């Protein structure tokens, strides 16, 4: 029985494999980029406000900082309390073209021991959690040059 793949949050990313991208929006007037997407009004106080258009963010960036979570986070994070807790790394990534820092979980198997500040990483599709019917998808950061 196969589960339906559904983004854990709507409209923040799309695509598969090398075509996977985070989706932000960009102001047509001042070119400010927003992630998570801003669809209402440009938040630049110096901008009179333009239309906000969807735009894929750069696939690669450099690590601003990283950490991990050695204890099980509380809800609304979804995890199975029956299973032992497996820590995951969190990576904050600077995207140079957008001049923005975006936080995300590291791809499975990547630990803090594998990371340094300034290292290049790329965004890859990932799974946040699964239930009986649905595979909830998300984005992960993975060091570049690591196996596909």
């Amino acid at each position, binding site marked *: 029985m196969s589960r339906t793949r559904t983004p854990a949050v709507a409209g923040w990313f799309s695509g598969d494999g090398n075509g996977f991208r985070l989706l932000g929006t960009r102001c047509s007037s001042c070119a400010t980029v927003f992630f998570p997407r801003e669809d209402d009004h440009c938040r630049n106080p110096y901008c009179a406000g333009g239309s906000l258009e969807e735009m894929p963010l750069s696939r690669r960036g450099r690590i601003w900082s*990283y*950490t991990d979570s050695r204890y099980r986070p509380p809800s609304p994070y979804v995890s199975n309390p029956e299973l032992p807790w497996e820590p995951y790394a969190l990576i904050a990534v600077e995207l140079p073209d957008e001049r*923005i820092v975006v936080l995300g979980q590291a791809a499975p198997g990547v630990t803090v021991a594998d990371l340094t500040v300034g290292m290049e990483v790329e965004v890859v599709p990932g799974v946040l959690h699964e239930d009986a019917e649905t595979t909830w998808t998300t984005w992960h950061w993975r060091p570049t040059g690591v196996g596909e």
Partner: protein
Amino acid sequence: MTRDVAVLGAGMHPWGKWGRPFVEYGTAAARAALTDADVEWRDVGSIVGADTVRGGYPGYVAGATFAKALGRQGARVASVYAACASGAQAIAAARAQILAGLAEVVLVVGADAAPKGFFRPAGGERPDDPDWLRFRLLGATNPAYFGLYARRRMAVHGDTPEDFALVKVKNAAMGALNPYARYRKRVTAEEVSASAVVADPLRLLDICATSDGGAALVLSSIDFAQRHGVPRPVRIRAVSTVTPRFPNTVLDLPDIATDSAVAVAAAGETFRASITRAAYEEAGIGPEDLSLAEVYDLSTALELQWYEDLGLCGAGEGAKLLREGVTAPGGRIPVNASGGLASFGEAVPAQAIAQVCELTWQLRGAAGDRQVAGARVGISANQGLFGHGSSVVAVR
């Protein structure tokens, strides 16, 4: 015309895990502050409560709750929610009422009975709340953000886990002297490094706990204080409650991303630095005038950051300042003489008020074994979730 208001009274309920309703802590702190001020509750013209969020509902409307518990007497009432800055905003509201002539004496109260373990957002599916989203999508707890900041300092400034541990050692030694602190034991650097990693590189003893607690202040006009027989009260000279400026380029709790700096260059100072600058400007003082500072050491590494944001030293020099003993008791500018959050833990609506209680006792020369000799000017600093600034300057 003076823009000062007087601190007539300060009171606290001891921090800890007492398991009692927050109203009890707040009421006890309020009664202590009123006694300290020698003011009857029925003579207080206004009460401002810092909102308590239990289960995510800031709906207890703290000002009114405390007014009811103390015995409703028709005072003006207000309630303030600004996350960790709630206490400072409550002080700001009280001060504004006094300076506007709307009230002569205002009681400010904050109290909480914190849940066990990590702070978490309110229940339900709430994808319009960035705080909910960071937990659901990333499992990014508060300590995870503290870990990010600590790792960043290590990479950029060369700080070490040993530097971070020294903050805990310093603050625990001060907390041991404070009867209101939850933790009253000295801690060694070895104990910090032997504690479990929570969020790399930070360990359990690098991160503040959650606690129950309450704090209260009685503020008044300077005229009232003088008529009341207090010719030289501790005075609040500035309250900074500024927001960040766009674009905020430092990843801030609870956000998943920073603002983009593609259209507007980031300001030359961080949000935290802008909070304290606004306080200095309003008070007409600078970091060189300070006798002491109370800052939010949510993590040990974050205290080092505050040294720089307070202008006590240049960027990246926080650990050096600590190692030189400048921020220790007897140093040029002791930081967290109260023991800080390292010794108190977080009781969110009470914290910023508790900082001003400590400044008050220090400026009166009434801080007992932890007294900073000759204290004349004190500053508190913290930052509330969602972009709430908080800094108070008190003078004697």
